[in-house]
């Protein structure tokens, strides 16, 4: 018989073991990052200039320039430092440098990956934190992207091109004239947002009805053409495929027979006007088998997709974060 506080002691021991493991892992990471060469998880970048030609409000042409960062491997950074030390390169702007923001980003990304993985152990606050960050960042990102890629070019750029050119889209065509037809989507957008108002929410139903109608119409036509008519045409295959004038292609003939019979049997399964007995019953049972094989193939493809996502995250942790592997030879310095 175990003592009355055995379970409590076991829980405390387990917690102590986990804390010890966590402290050891953090100590290892700090040591590896700070006291080894070349360290780990450092991101190097090089500034790339971007130039856009535009016009000022008074009509004079002007070039707008800024820089964006392109990631470069450690190898490029080391070679650049050596060239600078040897006096064969000047350094400064345009040469590779350590990006602290991206380095911190990599650490944060690794932390979030591990936090999400921790759900496999059990639900915990770290997982909840990572989940909340993901949802918050996604929503904010969509909002910002929506503003800059939809509202600015498609509304302001069309309704007031001169203002857009002078403020946010300097490269906009000088000959662009205001297109007042775009007041209609503006009005529809305002109507859609009306559902947030305390009264008159019914106003938002009108643009919603228009969107649903337009998309239903668009999809109906395209599905009918691409997925109905064309698929019927693709389904009609010769049951005896001839490779050349003398020979029959047995492999292709077999594939065509399977395709045609499988399609007919699957369609039979979904034919509910008669009881599935006799020939109809046999055909529908074959149809079920064909469907099951299809679902199996889909499951197989899905498993493959999910495993490769896991592989990519493991590669990220071992390669980009810990620098324990280097499959692309980015850190091989001669």
């Amino acid at each position, binding site marked *: 018989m175990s003592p009355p506080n055995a379970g409590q002691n076991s829980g405390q021991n387990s917690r102590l073991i986990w804390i010890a493991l966590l402290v050891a892992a953090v100590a290892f990471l700090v040591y590896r990052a700070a006291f080894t060469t070349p360290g780990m998880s450092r991101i190097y970048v090089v500034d790339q200039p971007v130039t856009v030609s535009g016009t000022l409000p008074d009509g004079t042409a002007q070039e707008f320039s800024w820089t964006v960062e392109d990631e470069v491997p450690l190898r490029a950074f080391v070679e650049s430092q050596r060239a600078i030390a040897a006096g064969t390169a000047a350094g400064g702007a345009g040469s590779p440098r350590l990006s602290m923001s991206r380095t911190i980003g990599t650490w944060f990304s690794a932390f979030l990956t591990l936090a999400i993985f921790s759900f496999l152990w059990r639900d915990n606050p770290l997982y909840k934190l990572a989940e909340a960050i993901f949802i918050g960042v996604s929503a904010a990102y969509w909002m910002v992207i929506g503003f800059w890629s939809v509202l600015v070019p498609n509304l302001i750029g069309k309704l007031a091109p001169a203002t857009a050119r002078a403020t946010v889209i300097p490269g906009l065509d000088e000959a662009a004239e205001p297109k007042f037809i775009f007041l209609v989507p503006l009005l529809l957008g305002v109507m859609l947002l009306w559902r947030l108002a305390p009264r008159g929410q019914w106003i938002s139903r009108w643009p919603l009805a228009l969107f649903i109608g337009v998309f239903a119409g668009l999809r109906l036509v395209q599905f009918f053409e691409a997925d109905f008519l064309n698929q019927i045409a693709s389904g009609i295959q010769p049951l005896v495929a001839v490779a050349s004038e003398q020979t029959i292609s047995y492999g292709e003939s077999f594939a065509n027979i399977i395709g045609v019979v499988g399609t007919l049997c699957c369609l039979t399964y979904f034919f509910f006007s008669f009881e599935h007995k006799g020939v109809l019953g046999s055909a529908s049972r074959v149809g079920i088998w064909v469907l099951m094989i299809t679902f199996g193939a889909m499951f197989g493809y899905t498993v*493959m*997709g999910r495993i490769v996502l896991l592989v990519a995250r493991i590669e990220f942790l071992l390669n980009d974060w810990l620098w324990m592997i280097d499959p*692309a030879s980015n850190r091989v310095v001669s």
Partner: protein
Amino acid sequence: MYEFLRTLDRRWIFLLMLIAVTVPTVAGWQFPEKVSRNTQRAFDEIEKLQPGDRVLFSFDFDPASAGELSPMATSLTYHAARRGAKLYFMSLWPVGPQLVRETVAKVIKPEFPEYRYGEDYVDLGYKSGYEAVIKVIVTDFRKLYLTDAAGSGIDTIPMMKDVRSVQDMDLVISISAGYAGAKEWVQYAKTAYPDTFSMVAGCTGVQAPPLLPYVPQQLPGLIAAIKGAAEYEKLLNAKYDLLAKPAFVEGTRRMGSQLVAHVLMVLLIVVGNIVYFIGRRRGVTS
């Protein structure tokens, strides 16, 4: 043994899967690939390109599926550039442009330094609207695209001067992880204008079964999942001798872990079924 397997904590299976994926990744195991007909067709479509032909790349995926689709994006971009084509990049997904920039930095800048922005390749950026974007640009780019991703006026870009719509392209390549993506490109562009341009798609494993019925009539070539990417790399390496460049065997590398993980999955399914049938014979209900 039966009781042990029946009550096995599922976290041991997670650990096994972690080991199955990590060991081949660390060891760098690679296995030979047999090229499927659909991948071969996709490769052949790009081989038909002549210098100066126009290729529209639609990066319809995000970082969540980049592990599966980035290898084929790398290979397809390299292949089209190697054929001397002019490359037009766009995206129907909001985070697609970052992946375009990543691919350009990985492929165009180091491998094709002679390629000039605006003359040989252009990044048109992201447009929201899903299939509505395709529906519009298939007849007129300028109704939606006033500038490129950086903000340069569309008419100031030399390689856009003679391009009015998607119909002016020779080939459309959609690298797609879902909606909107390859399916919508087939429905709204390729089916509507079947003879004006060719089309190739690369897709995730989840998306492959719904796209397969379009091959080859409506979709001449399809690279399906990471296996398709590995097959494409094999063809590309055989033709252009890229084996010395690790960036072009990313898919092949990831297939090493796939194989071991799949063997584990099969074993788990077999063992799970044996445990289930033994339990049923013994009358165990859960």
